[in-house]
C-alpha cells in the first residue's frame, strides 16, 4: 500500500514538475495574499506584528485550497480517476498518494512564502524556530489530510471548487484555532510556552483522529 502510494505521489509531483501549473499559482497567490494584507494592515505600524501569526495561516489555507481543488479535478479530464480506481490497489493508497503530493506542494509553498512574509513585514522572530517549524508541519498535516479527503468527496460534484471551501473551513476550524494560538505564542511570547504545548497536543490529537477516520472512510468516497 505504501509503495503504490509513493508511486502515485511521485506521478503527481512529476506531472506537476513538468507543468508547474499548480505550484506557481499557489506561490503567486500566497504573494498576493501578503500584498493584500499589506493594504489591510499598515506594515509600518507596530500592532501589525500581532496579526502576523494569523496571516501565516490565512496564506496556508487559501493557497492550500487552490492545490486541493486541483488534485482530484486533474484526474477527471481523461477520466483517469476511473483508471486509478480500477487499478489493483486500495482506495486508501490513492488517498495516501494524493495526500503526500499535496503535502509536499504545501510545504514548498510555505517554505517560499513565509520567509517572504517575515521579510516584507520586517518581522523579527523572538521565539524558537524549531517549534515554529513543528507547528507549521502538524498544522499543514492536519489541514491537508482532511482537505485531501474532502477534495475527493467534493470532486463528485460539478461545482467542486465552490463546494470544497464550504466543507473544509468549518471542519478544520479546531486546527486553525489551535495553530494560530500556538504560532502566536511561539513567535511573540515564549513565557506561555506550556499553553503552546497544549495547543500542539490538541492539534496533533486532531491530526491523528482525522487521519485515521479519513483512512477508514475513503473507501466509501472513492467507490466505482
Amino acid at each position, binding site marked *: 500500500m505504501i509503495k503504490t502510494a509513493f508511486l502515485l505521489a511521485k506521478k503527481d509531483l512529476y506531472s506537476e514538475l513538468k507543468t508547474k501549473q499548480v505550484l506557481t499559482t499557489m506561490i503567486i497567490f500566497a504573494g498576493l495574499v501578503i500584498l493584500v494584507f499589506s493594504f489591510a494592515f499598515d506594515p509600518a505600524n507596530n500592532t501589525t506584528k500581532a496579526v502576523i501569526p494569523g496571516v501565516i495561516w490565512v496564506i496556508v489555507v487559501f493557497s492550500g485550497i487552490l492545490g486541493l481543488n486541483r488534485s482530484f479535478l486533474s484526474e477527471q479530464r481523461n477520466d483517469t480517476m476511473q483508471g486509478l480506481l480500477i487499478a489493483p490497489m486500495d482506495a486508501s493508497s490513492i488517498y495516501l498518494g494524493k495526500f503526500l503530493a499535496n503535502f509536499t506542494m504545501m510545504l514548498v509553498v510555505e517554505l517560499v512564502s513565509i520567509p517572504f512574509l517575515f521579510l516584507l513585514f520586517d518581522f523579527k522572530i523572538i521565539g524558537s524556530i524549531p517549534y515554529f517549524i513543528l507547528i507549521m508541519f502538524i498544522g499543514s498535516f492536519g489541514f491537508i489530510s*482532511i482537505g485531501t*479527503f*474532502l477534495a475527493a*468527496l467534493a470532486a*463528485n*460534484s*460539478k461545482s467542486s471548487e465552490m*463546494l470544497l471551501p*464550504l*466543507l473544509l*473551513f*468549518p*471542519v478544520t*476550524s*479546531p486546527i486553525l*484555532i*489551535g495553530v494560530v*494560538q500556538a504560532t502566536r505564542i511561539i513567535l511573540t511570547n515564549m513565557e506561555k510556552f506550556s499553553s503552546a504545548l*497544549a*495547543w500542539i497536543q*490538541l492539534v496533533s*490529537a*486532531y491530526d491523528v*483522529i*482525522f487521519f485515521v*477516520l*479519513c483512512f477508514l*472512510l475513503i473507501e*466509501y*468516497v472513492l*467507490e466505482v
Partner: protein
Amino acid sequence: MSMNLEREKATLPLSESADAKSPILPKILLGITIVLILTAIYLTFMYADIEKTMGVVQKIFYFHVGSAATAFTAFFVTFIFSILYLVKRKRIFDTYASVSAEIGLIFTTLVLTTGPIWAKSAWNTWWVWEPRLTTTLILWFIYMAYMMIRQMDGVWDKKARLCAVFGIIGFTDVPIVFFAIRWWQTKFHPIVFGNGVSQKGGGIADNMLVALIVSIFALLSLYTYLLNRGVEFENMKIKVDQYKEKLREDLEN
C-alpha cells in the same frame, strides 16, 4: 450516467405493508406533540417564576435550550443513520439521516436566532465569541455544507454515500470544535454563563427546571413527528419518481 438512472426505477408493490400501519403512528405523535407543547407553553408562561435579574425575557430560555437539545439529538440521529447506511446500504437509512439533518439545521437556526435575542437583553450584546455560541455557529455551517452535498447532482446512492461520510466526519468534529474554542476563550466562560443557565441547572427554582424539562420533551416530540412526516414525504417522492420512470419506460416501448 444513463446506466445509473436505470437503477432508480424499481418495482413498486413492496410498499403495501407500510400503508397499513402508517396512519395511526403519526396521529399519536401529533397528539403527544400538541399536548406537550401546550403544557410547555403553560408551564413557561404561567407556572415558572419570572427570573429576578433578567425578567420576562428569560422565558425564551426554555425554547432556546429545548431547540439546542433537539438539534444535537437530530445530528446524533443523522450520525447513527449515516453509519447504518454505510454498513447496510438501505435507502431508508439515508432518508432518515437526511431528514434528521434537515430538521436539526432548522432547530440550530432557531437556537441561533433566539440566542441573540436573549443575549441582547441579558448581556447587552447580540453575540459573544463564547464556546457554546461559536460551536453552534460552526455546527450550523457544517450541516449547511451537508445540505450542499445533498443538493449535488447525480444518482441518489452516490449522494447518500458522500452524505453519510460527511455526516460522520462532521459529527466527530463537533466535540473537538467545542474543546478547542473553550480553550481559546477560557477567560470569558465563567463571566458569561455565571448569571444565566448554570444557576437554574444548579436547582435554584424547581418550577423552572420542570418547565425546561417539559419544553425539551415537547420539542423532542415535535422533532419525532417531523422526522416521521419527513421520511413519509421522502418515500412518497421516491415512489412518484419510480412511477414517472415506469411511465417513461412504457412510453418508450
